[in-house]
Each structure stands twice: as C-alpha cells, then as structure tokens.
C-alpha cells in the first residue's frame, strides 16, 4: 500500500440533489489491484476512498432503487479529487 495515496471524495445524490445515505461505493478498475471492500455513504451521501497509486480509476455508486453509476477519475500522487455521483431512479 502506498504511503502517499490520493483521495477521492464524493457525494452520492439523486437527480434532485437529495443525498443518498448507505449507498455502496467501490472501485471497479484501477492502475493496480484494489481491495474489494465497499464504502457506505453517510447521512450526507458522502464518501472518501483512497487511491493507492497514481492513475485512472473507475468507481461505481450503487443504491437500491437506483441505476448504478460509474465514474472515471484520474488521481495524482497525494492529490484530492472530488466527484459528484448523481443516481437515476
């Protein structure tokens, strides 16, 4: 595991902008093998994932009653990247 990971910070919400708590957010692709653990969004729909190495990542936001959403981000070493995951019901 890298001692200087990047950070992906995001919010999962619906199309109206209402936060979606307890959504599952996880990596589906990255520059290296990634832990197969999933974050749960908090009451504000927020999550933070660690990107262990620089590169391109694909994350997936899933919540019951919504279509899954896939987001691609590029993360530099030690960088903080913000994403907005809007789910369609």
């Amino acid at each position: 595991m890298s001692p200087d990971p990047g950070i992906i910070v995001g919010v999962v919400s619906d199309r109206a902008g209402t936060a979606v708590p307890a959504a599952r957010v996880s990596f589906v692709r990255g520059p290296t093998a990634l832990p197969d653990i999933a974050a749960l969004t908090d009451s504000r729909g927020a999550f933070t994932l660690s990107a262990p190495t620089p590169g391109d990542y694909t994350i997936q936001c899933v919540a019951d009653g919504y279509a899954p959403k896939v987001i691609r981000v590029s993360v530099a070493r030690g960088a903080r990247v913000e994403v907005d995951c809007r789910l369609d019901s």
Partner: protein
Amino acid sequence: MAKSKVRQPTGPDAPVSNQPKEVIEAATKAVTRPPSEGKDPKTSAPKPDGTEVVSGHRHTIKPLNEIFTAPSSSLPDIGEASFGPPPKITETVHGPDDRVQISNTSAYPWRAHASLLITAADNSMWIGTGWFIGPHTLMTAGHVVFIKNSGVPGRDGWVKKIQVMPGRNGNALPYGSVTSSSFRSVLGWTNNGDENYDYGAIIIPTELGNTVGWFGFGVWSDADLKAAVANISGYPGDKPAGTQWYDHRQIASVNSRKVFYDIDTAGGQSGSAVYRIINGGRYGVAVHAYGGATTNSGTRIATPVFNNMVAWKA
C-alpha cells in the same frame, strides 16, 4: 490433516491483536481443522466436480484457454435490440457476470458466510465478508479489521467494531447479528501494509459458530491448488443490499502467498472464503482480498497463515 502442535509464526506473519496479551493467552486451547455443519444444517450436497449446487448457475468448469477464445464475429448481444447497449461491466467481474444469488442462506454452507458492517476508526462505514472457522472466529481480509495507509486523517488502524450477520439475506438475519470489537491480524499487514499478509480474524463474543457451522481450512501444494476448483460466496456491494452471491472457477495461478482466479467478485466481498470442496467438506484455501483487471486474488493459506488460524479459532 494430522494434528500437530502449531508454532506461533514470527516475522511478517507474527500475529497481532487490538486486545491485551493476557486476554488472548487465556483463550488458547486445543482445536481441530475440519469443517462443521452446525446445528440442523439442511446442507445441500455439493457436486462431484467440487462446486456447489446453486439454481441458475450454469457455467461449467473448463480450462481457461477453452473459455477465453476469440469470437468469430463482432455481433452485439441480441438483448441490445430491445434494451440498448448494456452498462459497463465492472472489471472485478471478468467477462459475463457468472454470479448467482443464494436464496437459502439459512442453510449450511451459506450461513457460515457473514455480511460485515464495519465502523472504521474515523466512523466511516464499510461492508465486507467473513467466514466462520470455529465457534467464535471468522476469517476476513486484513484490510477489513485494520486500515492501512488510507491517507484520511483518523482512519488508519484497527477498526472500531464490526457487526457480523451470518447468512444474511437482504433485510433478513436468520441468525441475528453480533458485534465484535476484538480483531486479529499480522505484522506484515499492520506494520508494513504488505498485501501478501492481508488477512485477519474477527473474534465474536458468542459461540454462534456452533449453530451456523464453520469451514475447514488447510495448506495444499502449488500443483494441487492449480488443479482445483475454487468457490467464493460473499456480499458484493453492486447487488441488492445484504444479498449473498456465489461463483466458482478453476484457480488460475498461485504464488507462495497468493491465489489468483477469475471468479467474479465486487467491492464488499473482501474477506470471503476462497474454498474448495473435498469429499463433501468445505475447506478454505485463501482469503479473498483484491480485485484486478484480469484476475482477482486472495491471501493464500500458507503454513504460517494456517498456524495463526489454528491459534485464532481456539
């Protein structure tokens, strides 16, 4: 597997815990390694090919070079004619998604897998999977019990607690849930963050494993593992919340510390048992930990891992 006195591993496999040493020493006693089906198991017998009988699971065990052959044409799936192109297939799911949902999670072996709700040191919440190896011990990934190099202030270190839900099926908890704050891992993970040592255990304050049963576990040669079919069942986050999903495939490759496979998994399945079926018994061979672009992998149950597991289930 012959019984023998296990030696406590040293070096990167030196066991560590968030519990005081006297608490750990007081719990040690002689244990065995075979599986147990628990009480009133209603066990479904596995197939002779070393896989589980699961309704709807259709792909057969073939050598990898027979599975991955170039198509002779580039026609789209017929489904696109009605429904348009499919959503992007997740990369930890390799090729078509072969996972099938387990509906009878109250029966063995499915009830020996547990959905985990993890509260990290910074109160962030995560999901993972664990599997019983004894009356009060579940195996899981090291990164489930101890977060390393997250880069998030306050998140690293032992997690605060884990809610363990054996045989969970959506909102149904046929064996209830139990919360643990007692964990085990090894220095190779907690000190070094070395993925080759990414394994750990959850000690629960009840003997629930006596009811739900547990998996056996063992150490096998490279040749034996590479000829084996591996099974994985767990709680992926890309499926409806709290549902258990299963897949199997022949092991693709191994090294001294890892097992690699093209078994479909997704985030939330960290910690799942990678297991084989021998004479009808389920035996863990690795702890699923990582999703990769072409293969997924788990921490192999090598001899020092085995010795730690024997100690942790005592």
